[in-house]
Protein backbone atom coordinates (compact mmCIF):
# COMPACT_ATOMS: atom_id res chain seq x y z
CA UNK A 1 0.00 0.00 0.00
CA UNK A 2 2.77 2.35 1.01
CA UNK A 3 4.60 1.47 -2.19
CA UNK A 4 1.52 2.30 -4.32
CA UNK A 5 1.07 5.71 -2.65
CA UNK A 6 4.76 6.54 -3.17
CA UNK A 7 4.49 5.52 -6.83
CA UNK A 8 1.43 7.66 -7.38
CA UNK A 9 3.08 10.67 -5.73
CA UNK A 10 6.26 10.09 -7.75
CA UNK A 11 4.25 9.90 -10.99
CA UNK A 12 2.35 13.05 -10.12
CA UNK A 13 5.60 14.90 -9.39
CA UNK A 14 7.04 13.68 -12.70
CA UNK A 15 3.89 14.76 -14.55
CA UNK A 16 3.95 18.24 -13.03
CA UNK A 17 7.67 18.51 -13.74
CA UNK A 18 7.12 17.44 -17.36
CA UNK A 19 4.33 19.97 -17.80
CA UNK A 20 6.51 22.65 -16.24
CA UNK A 21 9.38 21.70 -18.52
CA UNK A 22 7.15 21.92 -21.57
CA UNK A 23 5.67 25.28 -20.71
CA UNK A 24 9.08 26.67 -19.88
CA UNK A 25 10.37 25.66 -23.33
CA UNK A 26 7.96 27.79 -25.28
CA UNK A 27 5.53 30.55 -24.41
CA UNK A 28 2.41 30.06 -26.47
CA UNK A 29 0.49 33.07 -25.18
CA UNK A 30 1.79 35.36 -27.92
CA UNK A 31 0.85 32.82 -30.61
CA UNK A 32 -2.54 32.23 -29.02
CA UNK A 33 -3.59 35.90 -28.77
CA UNK A 34 -2.30 36.53 -32.29
CA UNK A 35 -4.14 33.51 -33.73
CA UNK A 36 -7.38 34.34 -31.91
CA UNK A 37 -7.46 37.95 -33.10
CA UNK A 38 -6.55 36.90 -36.66
CA UNK A 39 -9.27 34.25 -36.65
CA UNK A 40 -11.89 36.81 -35.53
CA UNK A 41 -10.81 39.12 -38.36
CA UNK A 42 -11.85 36.55 -40.96
CA UNK A 43 -15.19 35.46 -39.54
CA UNK A 44 -18.21 35.60 -41.83
CA UNK A 45 -19.40 38.87 -40.27
CA UNK A 46 -16.22 40.51 -41.57
CA UNK A 47 -16.66 39.52 -45.23
CA UNK A 48 -17.19 42.86 -47.03
CA UNK A 49 -20.91 43.65 -47.47
CA UNK A 50 -20.15 45.88 -50.45
CA UNK A 51 -18.50 43.42 -52.79
CA UNK A 52 -18.38 42.79 -56.54
CA UNK A 53 -22.17 42.36 -56.85
CA UNK A 54 -22.83 45.77 -55.28
CA UNK A 55 -20.12 47.27 -57.47
CA UNK A 56 -21.66 45.85 -60.67
CA UNK A 57 -25.08 47.19 -59.64
CA UNK A 58 -23.67 50.69 -59.08
CA UNK A 59 -21.36 50.74 -62.10
CA UNK A 60 -24.29 49.86 -64.41
CA UNK A 61 -25.90 53.23 -63.75
CA UNK A 62 -22.85 55.35 -62.90
CA UNK A 63 -21.03 54.38 -66.12
CA UNK A 64 -24.13 53.48 -68.17
CA UNK A 65 -25.80 55.70 -70.76
CA UNK A 66 -29.13 55.50 -72.59
CA UNK A 67 -32.65 56.85 -72.73
CA UNK A 68 -34.46 53.98 -71.03
CA UNK A 69 -34.14 52.43 -67.60
CA UNK A 70 -33.37 49.04 -69.11
CA UNK A 71 -29.97 50.41 -70.25
CA UNK A 72 -28.98 50.73 -66.59
CA UNK A 73 -29.75 47.15 -65.56
CA UNK A 74 -26.92 44.99 -64.24
CA UNK A 75 -26.23 41.30 -64.62
CA UNK A 76 -24.70 40.38 -61.28
CA UNK A 77 -24.41 36.61 -61.81
CA UNK A 78 -20.61 36.63 -62.32
CA UNK A 79 -20.07 39.16 -59.55
CA UNK A 80 -21.91 36.97 -57.06
CA UNK A 81 -19.41 34.25 -57.98
CA UNK A 82 -16.50 36.58 -57.20
CA UNK A 83 -18.05 37.45 -53.84
CA UNK A 84 -18.37 33.75 -53.10
CA UNK A 85 -14.66 33.29 -53.81
CA UNK A 86 -13.77 36.16 -51.44
CA UNK A 87 -16.06 34.66 -48.77
CA UNK A 88 -14.29 31.29 -49.19
CA UNK A 89 -10.92 32.97 -48.75
CA UNK A 90 -12.17 34.53 -45.50
CA UNK A 91 -13.55 31.18 -44.38
CA UNK A 92 -10.30 29.33 -45.08
CA UNK A 93 -8.21 31.91 -43.23
CA UNK A 94 -10.62 31.92 -40.26
CA UNK A 95 -10.43 28.11 -40.10
CA UNK A 96 -6.63 28.12 -40.25
CA UNK A 97 -6.17 30.72 -37.51
CA UNK A 98 -8.89 29.02 -35.48
CA UNK A 99 -6.92 25.78 -35.65
CA UNK A 100 -3.73 27.62 -34.71
CA UNK A 101 -5.52 29.22 -31.74
CA UNK A 102 -6.78 25.82 -30.60
CA UNK A 103 -3.33 24.28 -30.90
CA UNK A 104 -1.78 27.08 -28.88
CA UNK A 105 -4.27 26.89 -26.04
CA UNK A 106 -7.78 28.05 -26.91
CA UNK A 107 -10.59 25.87 -25.66
CA UNK A 108 -13.26 27.10 -28.08
CA UNK A 109 -14.93 24.54 -30.32
CA UNK A 110 -13.65 24.40 -33.85
CA UNK A 111 -15.93 24.12 -36.83
CA UNK A 112 -14.00 22.18 -39.42
CA UNK A 113 -16.94 22.23 -41.84
CA UNK A 114 -15.79 25.63 -43.15
CA UNK A 115 -12.94 23.81 -44.85
CA UNK A 116 -15.10 21.92 -47.28
CA UNK A 117 -15.36 23.17 -50.84
CA UNK A 118 -12.07 25.04 -51.03
CA UNK A 119 -11.25 27.13 -54.08
CA UNK A 120 -11.06 25.32 -57.40
CA UNK A 121 -8.95 26.54 -60.30
CA UNK A 122 -10.91 27.93 -63.20
CA UNK A 123 -12.35 31.02 -64.81
CA UNK A 124 -15.35 32.57 -63.17
CA UNK A 125 -16.38 35.16 -65.73
CA UNK A 126 -13.60 37.73 -65.79
CA UNK A 127 -12.24 36.45 -62.49
CA UNK A 128 -9.64 33.70 -62.74
CA UNK A 129 -8.47 31.36 -60.02
CA UNK A 130 -5.10 30.05 -61.18
CA UNK A 131 -3.87 26.60 -60.24
CA UNK A 132 -1.25 28.32 -58.02
CA UNK A 133 -3.93 30.23 -56.16
CA UNK A 134 -6.14 27.18 -55.82
CA UNK A 135 -3.10 25.18 -54.68
CA UNK A 136 -2.30 27.71 -51.97
CA UNK A 137 -5.91 27.64 -50.75
CA UNK A 138 -5.93 23.84 -50.74
CA UNK A 139 -2.63 23.75 -48.84
CA UNK A 140 -4.09 26.07 -46.24
CA UNK A 141 -7.16 23.87 -45.90
CA UNK A 142 -4.93 20.82 -45.48
CA UNK A 143 -2.77 22.69 -42.96
CA UNK A 144 -5.81 23.66 -40.89
CA UNK A 145 -7.10 20.09 -40.95
CA UNK A 146 -3.67 18.85 -39.90
CA UNK A 147 -3.55 21.25 -36.98
CA UNK A 148 -7.01 20.11 -35.94
CA UNK A 149 -6.21 16.41 -35.99
CA UNK A 150 -2.65 15.11 -36.10
CA UNK A 151 -1.43 18.61 -35.20
CA UNK A 152 -2.85 18.33 -31.70
CA UNK A 153 -0.33 15.56 -31.05
CA UNK A 154 2.39 17.51 -32.78
CA UNK A 155 2.89 20.51 -30.55
CA UNK A 156 5.80 21.78 -32.60
CA UNK A 157 3.97 24.99 -33.43
CA UNK A 158 7.01 26.78 -34.76
CA UNK A 159 7.62 24.04 -37.30
CA UNK A 160 3.95 24.15 -38.28
CA UNK A 161 4.03 27.94 -38.64
CA UNK A 162 7.11 27.74 -40.80
CA UNK A 163 5.72 24.97 -43.01
CA UNK A 164 2.43 26.81 -43.56
CA UNK A 165 3.94 30.25 -44.16
CA UNK A 166 3.91 30.08 -48.01
CA UNK A 167 0.23 29.09 -48.08
CA UNK A 168 -0.80 31.68 -45.47
CA UNK A 169 1.20 34.45 -47.15
CA UNK A 170 -0.06 33.45 -50.60
CA UNK A 171 -3.70 33.60 -49.58
CA UNK A 172 -3.32 36.82 -47.58
CA UNK A 173 -1.49 38.49 -50.51
CA UNK A 174 -4.20 37.36 -52.93
CA UNK A 175 -6.98 38.59 -50.68
CA UNK A 176 -5.26 41.96 -50.23
CA UNK A 177 -4.89 42.26 -54.00
CA UNK A 178 -8.57 41.45 -54.64
CA UNK A 179 -9.53 44.08 -52.06
CA UNK A 180 -7.17 46.64 -53.61
CA UNK A 181 -8.57 46.03 -57.11
CA UNK A 182 -12.15 46.51 -55.96
CA UNK A 183 -11.25 49.51 -53.82
CA UNK A 184 -9.66 51.23 -56.84
CA UNK A 185 -12.65 50.37 -59.03
CA UNK A 186 -14.94 51.98 -56.46
CA UNK A 187 -12.69 55.07 -56.53
CA UNK A 188 -13.19 55.11 -60.31
CA UNK A 189 -16.94 55.00 -59.73
CA UNK A 190 -16.57 58.07 -57.54
CA UNK A 191 -14.58 59.91 -60.23
CA UNK A 192 -17.17 59.14 -62.89
CA UNK A 193 -20.03 60.10 -60.59
CA UNK A 194 -18.34 63.44 -59.96
CA UNK A 195 -17.72 63.96 -63.68
CA UNK A 196 -21.35 63.26 -64.62
CA UNK A 197 -22.76 65.29 -61.77
CA UNK A 198 -20.51 68.27 -62.57
CA UNK A 199 -21.55 68.38 -66.21
CA UNK A 200 -25.24 67.67 -65.48
CA UNK A 201 -25.43 70.36 -62.80
CA UNK A 202 -23.80 72.85 -65.16
CA UNK A 203 -26.32 72.18 -67.92
CA UNK A 204 -29.39 71.94 -65.65
CA UNK A 205 -32.02 74.43 -66.74
CA UNK A 206 -33.75 74.94 -63.40
CA UNK A 207 -32.63 75.25 -59.79
CA UNK A 208 -34.79 72.25 -58.88
CA UNK A 209 -33.11 70.07 -61.52
CA UNK A 210 -29.69 71.20 -60.31
CA UNK A 211 -30.56 70.52 -56.67
CA UNK A 212 -31.67 67.01 -57.53
CA UNK A 213 -28.30 66.28 -59.17
CA UNK A 214 -26.39 67.79 -56.23
CA UNK A 215 -28.41 65.82 -53.66
CA UNK A 216 -27.93 62.46 -55.38
CA UNK A 217 -24.24 63.17 -55.94
CA UNK A 218 -23.61 64.05 -52.30
CA UNK A 219 -25.48 61.02 -50.95
CA UNK A 220 -23.74 58.50 -53.21
CA UNK A 221 -20.28 60.00 -52.78
CA UNK A 222 -20.67 59.70 -49.01
CA UNK A 223 -21.74 56.05 -49.29
CA UNK A 224 -18.85 55.15 -51.61
CA UNK A 225 -16.32 57.01 -49.44
CA UNK A 226 -17.38 54.92 -46.45
CA UNK A 227 -16.93 51.70 -48.47
CA UNK A 228 -13.46 52.77 -49.65
CA UNK A 229 -12.51 53.56 -46.05
CA UNK A 230 -13.56 50.06 -44.94
CA UNK A 231 -11.46 48.45 -47.67
CA UNK A 232 -8.48 50.57 -46.61
CA UNK A 233 -8.95 49.30 -43.03
CA UNK A 234 -9.21 45.69 -44.19
CA UNK A 235 -6.01 45.94 -46.19
CA UNK A 236 -4.15 47.41 -43.20
CA UNK A 237 -5.55 44.60 -41.04
CA UNK A 238 -4.30 41.96 -43.49
CA UNK A 239 -0.87 43.64 -43.61
CA UNK A 240 -0.71 43.54 -39.80
CA UNK A 241 -1.66 39.86 -39.70
CA UNK A 242 1.16 39.14 -42.17
CA UNK A 243 3.56 41.20 -40.02
CA UNK A 244 2.55 39.29 -36.88
CA UNK A 245 3.11 35.91 -38.56
CA UNK A 246 6.52 37.05 -39.81
CA UNK A 247 7.52 38.24 -36.32
CA UNK A 248 6.57 34.89 -34.76
CA UNK A 249 8.58 33.09 -37.42
CA UNK A 250 11.64 35.30 -37.06
CA UNK A 251 11.75 35.10 -33.26
CA UNK A 252 14.43 32.86 -31.77
CA UNK A 253 13.55 33.23 -28.07
CA UNK A 254 10.82 30.57 -28.11
CA UNK A 255 8.40 33.53 -28.00
CA UNK A 256 9.55 34.43 -24.50
CA UNK A 257 11.29 37.74 -25.16
CA UNK A 258 9.58 40.84 -23.79
CA UNK A 259 10.28 42.69 -27.02
CA UNK A 260 8.37 40.10 -29.08
CA UNK A 261 5.47 40.02 -26.63
CA UNK A 262 5.24 43.82 -26.73
CA UNK A 263 5.31 43.90 -30.52
CA UNK A 264 2.75 41.12 -30.88
CA UNK A 265 0.62 42.78 -28.20
CA UNK A 266 0.59 46.06 -30.12
CA UNK A 267 -0.18 44.28 -33.40
CA UNK A 268 -2.98 42.25 -31.80
CA UNK A 269 -4.52 45.42 -30.33
CA UNK A 270 -4.38 47.07 -33.73
CA UNK A 271 -5.76 44.00 -35.54
CA UNK A 272 -8.67 43.83 -33.06
CA UNK A 273 -9.40 47.53 -33.47
CA UNK A 274 -9.26 47.35 -37.28
CA UNK A 275 -11.29 44.16 -37.35
CA UNK A 276 -14.04 45.78 -35.27
CA UNK A 277 -13.93 48.99 -37.32
CA UNK A 278 -14.37 47.17 -40.61
CA UNK A 279 -17.36 45.07 -39.52
CA UNK A 280 -20.47 45.46 -41.62
Amino acid at each position, binding site marked *: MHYIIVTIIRNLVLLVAAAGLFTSCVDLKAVNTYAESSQKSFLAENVPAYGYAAYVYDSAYIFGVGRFLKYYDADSAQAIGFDTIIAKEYSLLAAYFNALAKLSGSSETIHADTLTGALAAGTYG*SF*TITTTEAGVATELGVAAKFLLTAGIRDKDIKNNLSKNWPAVKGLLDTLALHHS*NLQLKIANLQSNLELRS*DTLARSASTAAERWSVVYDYKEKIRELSAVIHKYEIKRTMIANILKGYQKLLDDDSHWKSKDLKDKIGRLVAEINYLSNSSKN
Partner: protein
Amino acid sequence: MTTQENAQFANSLGALYQGIAQQMGTFLHANIDTMTQAQINTLADDQGRVLSFSNTFLTLSDNIAFAGSDACFAAITQATAEINADIKKIDNINKWITVAAGVITMGAAVVSGNLGGVGTGLASFITALKS
Protein backbone atom coordinates in the same frame (compact mmCIF):
# COMPACT_ATOMS: atom_id res chain seq x y z
CA MET B 1 7.53 37.65 -63.48
CA THR B 2 5.36 35.33 -61.38
CA THR B 3 1.58 35.40 -61.74
CA GLN B 4 1.34 37.23 -58.42
CA GLU B 5 3.82 39.87 -59.65
CA ASN B 6 1.88 40.19 -62.91
CA ALA B 7 -1.33 40.74 -60.98
CA GLN B 8 0.40 43.25 -58.72
CA PHE B 9 1.79 45.06 -61.76
CA ALA B 10 -1.65 45.30 -63.38
CA ASN B 11 -3.00 46.58 -60.06
CA SER B 12 -0.32 49.29 -59.90
CA LEU B 13 -1.15 50.37 -63.46
CA GLY B 14 -4.83 50.54 -62.51
CA ALA B 15 -3.88 52.66 -59.48
CA LEU B 16 -1.73 54.96 -61.63
CA TYR B 17 -4.58 55.56 -64.10
CA GLN B 18 -7.07 55.97 -61.26
CA GLY B 19 -4.86 58.69 -59.75
CA ILE B 20 -4.56 60.50 -63.09
CA ALA B 21 -8.34 60.34 -63.68
CA GLN B 22 -8.95 61.65 -60.18
CA GLN B 23 -6.64 64.62 -60.77
CA MET B 24 -8.35 65.36 -64.11
CA GLY B 25 -11.68 65.33 -62.28
CA THR B 26 -10.35 67.63 -59.56
CA PHE B 27 -9.19 70.10 -62.23
CA LEU B 28 -12.52 69.96 -64.07
CA HIS B 29 -14.48 70.29 -60.82
CA ALA B 30 -12.50 73.41 -59.81
CA ASN B 31 -12.54 75.09 -63.24
CA ILE B 32 -15.85 74.08 -64.81
CA ASP B 33 -17.26 77.59 -64.38
CA THR B 34 -14.55 79.14 -66.55
CA MET B 35 -14.17 76.46 -69.23
CA THR B 36 -15.93 76.48 -72.61
CA GLN B 37 -18.37 73.67 -73.45
CA ALA B 38 -15.89 72.35 -76.03
CA GLN B 39 -13.10 72.21 -73.44
CA ILE B 40 -15.38 70.47 -70.95
CA ASN B 41 -16.40 67.90 -73.56
CA THR B 42 -12.78 67.19 -74.50
CA LEU B 43 -11.58 66.83 -70.92
CA ALA B 44 -14.64 64.80 -69.90
CA ASP B 45 -14.16 62.40 -72.83
CA ASP B 46 -10.47 62.01 -72.01
CA GLN B 47 -11.19 61.40 -68.35
CA GLY B 48 -13.74 58.76 -69.32
CA ARG B 49 -11.09 56.97 -71.40
CA VAL B 50 -8.51 57.13 -68.60
CA LEU B 51 -11.08 55.69 -66.17
CA SER B 52 -11.86 52.96 -68.64
CA PHE B 53 -8.15 52.01 -68.89
CA SER B 54 -7.88 51.98 -65.11
CA ASN B 55 -10.83 49.57 -64.88
CA THR B 56 -9.32 47.42 -67.64
CA PHE B 57 -6.03 47.08 -65.74
CA LEU B 58 -7.82 46.28 -62.48
CA THR B 59 -9.89 43.59 -64.21
CA LEU B 60 -6.67 42.21 -65.71
CA SER B 61 -5.25 42.06 -62.22
CA ASP B 62 -8.19 39.96 -61.04
CA ASN B 63 -7.62 37.81 -64.11
CA ILE B 64 -3.94 37.35 -63.18
CA ALA B 65 -3.04 37.06 -66.83
CA PHE B 66 -0.94 39.83 -68.23
CA ALA B 67 1.29 39.42 -71.25
CA GLY B 68 4.49 41.37 -71.80
CA SER B 69 4.54 42.95 -68.37
CA ASP B 70 8.28 42.40 -67.85
CA ALA B 71 9.23 44.80 -70.61
CA CYS B 72 6.96 47.69 -69.77
CA PHE B 73 7.26 47.27 -66.00
CA ALA B 74 10.66 48.97 -65.75
CA ALA B 75 9.72 51.91 -67.97
CA ILE B 76 6.45 52.57 -66.22
CA THR B 77 7.88 52.15 -62.72
CA GLN B 78 10.50 54.75 -63.52
CA ALA B 79 7.89 57.18 -64.75
CA THR B 80 5.31 56.62 -62.00
CA ALA B 81 7.05 58.64 -59.29
CA GLU B 82 7.64 61.48 -61.72
CA ILE B 83 3.99 61.46 -62.79
CA ASN B 84 2.68 61.38 -59.25
CA ALA B 85 4.89 64.29 -58.26
CA ASP B 86 4.03 66.52 -61.22
CA ILE B 87 0.42 65.72 -62.05
CA LYS B 88 -0.99 67.89 -59.28
CA LYS B 89 0.85 70.90 -60.66
CA ILE B 90 -1.00 70.96 -64.00
CA ASP B 91 -2.81 74.25 -63.97
CA ASN B 92 -4.26 74.77 -67.45
CA ILE B 93 -6.63 72.96 -69.74
CA ASN B 94 -4.30 72.78 -72.76
CA LYS B 95 -1.62 71.03 -70.76
CA TRP B 96 -4.23 68.59 -69.43
CA ILE B 97 -5.36 67.76 -72.95
CA THR B 98 -1.76 67.02 -74.02
CA VAL B 99 -1.08 64.90 -70.93
CA ALA B 100 -4.35 63.01 -71.38
CA ALA B 101 -3.50 62.20 -75.01
CA GLY B 102 -0.15 60.70 -73.93
CA VAL B 103 -1.75 58.74 -71.09
CA ILE B 104 -4.38 57.32 -73.45
CA THR B 105 -1.74 56.36 -76.04
CA MET B 106 0.26 54.56 -73.36
CA GLY B 107 -2.81 52.75 -72.00
CA ALA B 108 -3.84 51.58 -75.45
CA ALA B 109 -0.27 50.38 -76.13
CA VAL B 110 -0.12 48.36 -72.88
CA VAL B 111 -3.54 46.79 -73.43
CA SER B 112 -2.76 45.84 -77.05
CA GLY B 113 0.76 44.62 -76.23
CA ASN B 114 2.37 47.24 -78.50
CA LEU B 115 5.36 47.89 -76.28
CA GLY B 116 6.87 50.50 -78.66
CA GLY B 117 3.81 52.64 -78.08
CA VAL B 118 4.40 52.58 -74.32
CA GLY B 119 7.59 54.60 -74.75
CA THR B 120 5.94 57.04 -77.17
CA GLY B 121 3.03 57.67 -74.82
CA LEU B 122 5.32 58.05 -71.81
CA ALA B 123 7.66 60.48 -73.58
CA SER B 124 4.86 62.76 -74.76
CA PHE B 125 3.13 63.13 -71.45
CA ILE B 126 6.28 63.42 -69.37
CA THR B 127 7.40 66.27 -71.66
CA ALA B 128 4.00 67.92 -71.17
CA LEU B 129 4.22 67.43 -67.41
CA LYS B 130 7.61 69.13 -67.27
CA SER B 131 6.74 72.06 -69.55
